[in-house]
């Protein structure tokens, strides 16, 4: 006997969509709200910047000028800004566990549901 799903009313449908919406917006805005978002560069400007000290040759100086940076001082911050790639191993392991755990969870629950689908579509296995 095939599984007969209940019919969902209009209110139920609206509530379900709403739940998904709240989850989505929450996932997007929570890190922003908690101020945990994004990686920024930190500039380490030189004291008396010259194009030579900043390692820019003649051609590159011409390019900077065309982009609206006429002298070394104006490009100082942008040239010396660097990312910080130090990270904690604990955080890395936590992330790895979460990613792998997520996929394992989804595949295992799917497998259970999939067996039902196949059984209903093709009939029970005759052994």
């Amino acid at each position, binding site marked *: 006997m095939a599984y007969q799903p209940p019919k969902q009313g209009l209110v139920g449908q609206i509530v379900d969509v709403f739940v998904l919406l709240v989850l989505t917006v929450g996932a997007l805005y*929570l890190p*922003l709200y908690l101020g945990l978002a994004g*990686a920024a560069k930190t500039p380490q400007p030189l004291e008396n910047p010259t194009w030579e000290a900043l390692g820019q040759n003649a*051609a590159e100086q011409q390019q900077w000028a065309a982009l609206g940076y006429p002298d070394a001082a104006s490009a100082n911050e942008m040239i010396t800004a660097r990312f910080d790639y130090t990270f904690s191993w604990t955080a890395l392991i936590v992330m790895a566990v979460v990613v792998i755990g997520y996929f394992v969870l989804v595949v295992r629950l799917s497998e259970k549901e999939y067996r039902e689908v196949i059984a209903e579509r093709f009939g029970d296995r005759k052994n």
Partner: protein
Amino acid sequence: MSNTTAAAAQERLGLLRVLGPGHVWALGVGIVLVGEYMGWNFSVGKGGMIAGLVACWVAGLLYTCVAMIDSEVTSTVAAAGGQYAQAKHIVGPLMAFNVGLFLVMAYTMLEAANAITIGFLLDTVAGMLGHSGLNQKPFIILTILALAWLNYRGVLASLSFNFIITAFAFVAIIVLFLSVQFGASAVPLDFSAVSNEPLPYGWLGIVAALHFGLWYYLGIEGTCQAAEEVRSPARSLPFGTMAGIMTLLIAATLTWYVCSGLIPWEYLGNAGTPLFDAARVTGNSGLMVLLFIGTAFATTASANGCINDASRAWFSMGRDRYLPSWFGAVHPHYRTPYRSIVFLVPIALIFALGAPLDQVITFSILSGLLGYTFMTFNMVMFRRKWPLGTIKRGYVHPWHPLPALLLLLICGATYFAVFLGYGTQLIAMLSFYIIASLWFHFWRYRFVRRGDQFTMPWPRPIGY
């Protein structure tokens, strides 16, 4: 086929089968080409010029695997929803629900990012012409609404439009490359940073650069969303997808070459519109206008393709009752999933008007990345449950399981790259998918008819 099925089929509405391989190419490349006009260059900022080029090619390899795997599965499971329908037939319902969400999130976020970029571009032009403080909101809203309406009116017009503007944007990149090569630039190409400062962050920089290296190609897998509207999916989908990835490999390499040669890498790593900036450096006003139009067209094409893909995925989930069945409706005249298209408009607007660009891009990349990870084991399971020779495949990709393993390896490296700097977002995103999965498994799935989910005329999978 008997007469009764023919009669029953007449009372039913389906999507319209009108597209050819050119439209598939336009859908895939149209979504992605904007990546060459903005975004990819952050990879140069993350690791330097060489890292940018390595990321461009490693990501190219990743997407070649994606395109090969996808072509095989989708030429066999030809249904709207693409990877969603694949997951449903091969892995199981919960995975399918997750994949459907990956698709909708990745494309809706990308659509929002495109609308933000159009607003920014118009603001820049207004500024150059002496009007400061342009209100970007009406233009962002108009972009999303106008493209939604185009999609509402029919898939053939939407994708023919996409074909024209995508081709223009691609030609613009080639024209820029050729003009610079034949001396149209007042400023010489300079690659000295490649030897002077090859890897400012060392090898770690190359891995970190992968995060934005994906942006060169992100979305090419969207070609399979058109499966139900293509005249001959088994031929057109592999052809359009493969032609698309080749186009992008060429465009990505040319873009890296021209931009790295004309723009100091420290600037390039921060640029909002790198190709347009490269045209500005040449000092040639003709090139500037060309690349401005190219940027605008690429962005529009991408937003247009995203609306098409996100609504197909949402529609398919509604049709299977993974979401309220109300969304599974087809417009009786235009034959488009009109309710899904309309519903996703305000969602895109929330993201476009409320969130910062890099946040939106990262969420789009992450959803894409989760989708690629899924493809690896999906492919292995597909070959195991239906080995070659048990069902007819439109295309069989070579060297299985090498592409799947390679894809998994590169996905792992990319997770690490995202972790350097955007770890919090990764965790937030995964928490969202975990909660949504539990909600689906324990609540929503009760409304789904079990056997009806399996729609392909295939034999029973091996081992079940």
